[in-house]
């Protein structure tokens, strides 16, 4: 596969041939593009050797795990965490943030493993949820200490897993639990915007949707409540859109994911609606799909357009086949949705003019 520099070189020769670019500038222009670094054979072999040595060490320890004294096992578990955190600190000090970021994420997972293995080594019975939350807190602390998005993503994952792993979602509980994601996801979203980290924005947006799912399941939300969650996610998606329009690189991520979340919640809200609300819900569904297609096209957001197209396709299928409506009713539903789409399109055209 040709590198970017090779592609530019070809295009440049063509442009020079067509008289678009002076030939004298060719060398200077190509020199301004850095050569992509490539892994040489020796480095590649060193990496392979390092990985194989690591696998050999893990296999050796696993084979002798039963023979090791408890304190030795504990020391090894803590040593792995300390070594990875120490290496992250070393790379951070050396001015290599990417390596530090990756090692901080590894350290976060090593600490989570340390919690689990410590419970096993010393037979400490504990709550699964607490273990995940503790892992999340340490991952978040490492993220803040090293300003690393990867451990922050790990923190969101740990907290979310803790929320869903141990809680009995489908049992009515007299004690109202609070999901850790209610804190972790907004905090991650704020950090993502502040650090301008797109990967963290993905994790934060998914965390926000997961928090809504958790709450809807926990509260056994009625259809109206689920549609309410859809509205809340739509508001957050609008906030993401607002950020995007102001140039925040993370805004589009929130906009896309949360729009998807809102659509899915809206659709789920209509599964078990009472008969009287079914037709308004289906009309709203079609309007929402059309609006998302228009919005996605206007904002050049492929993910939002895709959400709208998919929503429309499923919505039309549901209206035609699942509702058991007569063709006349189906025709009325499509007619009202079409009127709404036409009015909206006309209004947008007038506004653009």
């Amino acid at each position, binding site marked *: 596969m040709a590198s970017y520099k090779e592609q530019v070189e070809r295009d440049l020769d063509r442009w020079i041939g067509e008289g678009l670019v002076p030939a004298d500038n060719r060398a200077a222009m190509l020199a301004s593009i850095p050569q992509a670094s490539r892994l040489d054979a020796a480095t590649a072999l060193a990496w392979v050797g390092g990985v194989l040595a690591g696998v050999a060490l893990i296999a050796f320890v696993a084979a002798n795990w*039963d023979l090791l*004294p*408890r*304190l030795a096992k*504990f020391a090894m578990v*803590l040593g792995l*965490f*300390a070594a990875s*955190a*120490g290496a*992250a*600190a*070393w790379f*951070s*000090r050396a001015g290599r943030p990417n390596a*530090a970021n990756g090692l*901080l994420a590894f*350290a976060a997972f090593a*600490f989570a493993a*340390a*919690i689990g293995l*410590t419970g*096993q*080594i*010393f*037979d*400490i*019975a504990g709550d699964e949820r607490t273990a995940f939350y503790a892992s999340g807190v*340490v991952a978040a*602390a*490492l993220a*803040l*200490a*090293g*300003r690393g998005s990867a451990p922050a993503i790990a923190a969101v994952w740990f907290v979310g897993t803790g929320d869903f792993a141990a809680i*009995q979602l489908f*049992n009515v509980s007299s004690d109202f639990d609070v999901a850790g994601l209610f804190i972790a996801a907004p905090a991650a979203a704020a950090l993502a915007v502040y650090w301008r980290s797109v990967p963290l924005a993905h994790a934060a947006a998914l965390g926000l949707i997961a928090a809504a799912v958790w709450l809807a399941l926990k509260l056994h939300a009625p259809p109206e409540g689920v549609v309410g969650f859809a509205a809340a996610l739509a508001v957050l998606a609008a906030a993401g859109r607002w950020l995007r329009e102001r140039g925040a690189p993370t805004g589009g991520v929130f906009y896309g994911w949360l729009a998807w979340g809102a659509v899915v919640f809206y659709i789920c809200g209509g599964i078990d609606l009472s008969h009287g609300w079914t037709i308004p819900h289906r009309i709203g569904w079609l309007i929402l799909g059309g609006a998302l297609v228009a919005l996605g096209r206007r904002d050049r957001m492929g993910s939002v357009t895709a959400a709208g197209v998919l929503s429309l396709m499923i919505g039309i299928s549901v209206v035609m086949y699942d509702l058991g409506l007569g063709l006349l009713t189906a025709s009325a539903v499509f007619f009202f949705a079409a009127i709404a789409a036409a009015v909206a399109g006309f209004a947008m055209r007038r506004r653009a003019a």
Partner: protein
Amino acid sequence: MPAAWMRILAVAAVSILALVAVVVHEGMARDAGTEIAMPMQPVDPQSLLSGHYVVVGLSETLDAGQACPPGVETGIQPNFDASMRKPRWVALAPAAGHTRVAGVADTEAAARRFAPLVAHGDAYCVATVPDTTGFVATWLGVDHFYLDQAEAQRVAGAMSPTSDQPAPVSAIISIGADNRARMKGVMVGAQRIAPGWY
């Protein structure tokens, strides 16, 4: 503000110290707690041993005419499923070489009216009726006990209904001052298997 590398090292050090503190605290609480032994019953031999741990299923058979302890949830389900457990208080009293459930209550004070030793947990009872032997299944928050592979297999073998050398197996549990149960070991017949710190 200190440099990032210093902050990372500080977080790592605090995290390690916190984990060590948990281990030391749990070990001290286990050593200082009141030791009890409760019979373990294999509910399903297939699920008894997984990896290197023994599933701790505390269960005591009820003799004919023996009633369920007061306050205990009763039913006809053959297992004390996790979804049936509630955060309650279990009163424990000595009986014939082991410890049995004296009663269950929603509060600590109410549980102490049955017996002075109480722990966080719950119990479930199936009463003895003609042709069916009842039992009291107890959950004290300890589900697994980790052992070396050979020991775990020996315990599992002793508890298996098809075992050549069956032996009564009891869980040795420490009830701490915080009313939490902590596993200390298992008793297979007359042999005590209780790994120490090392």
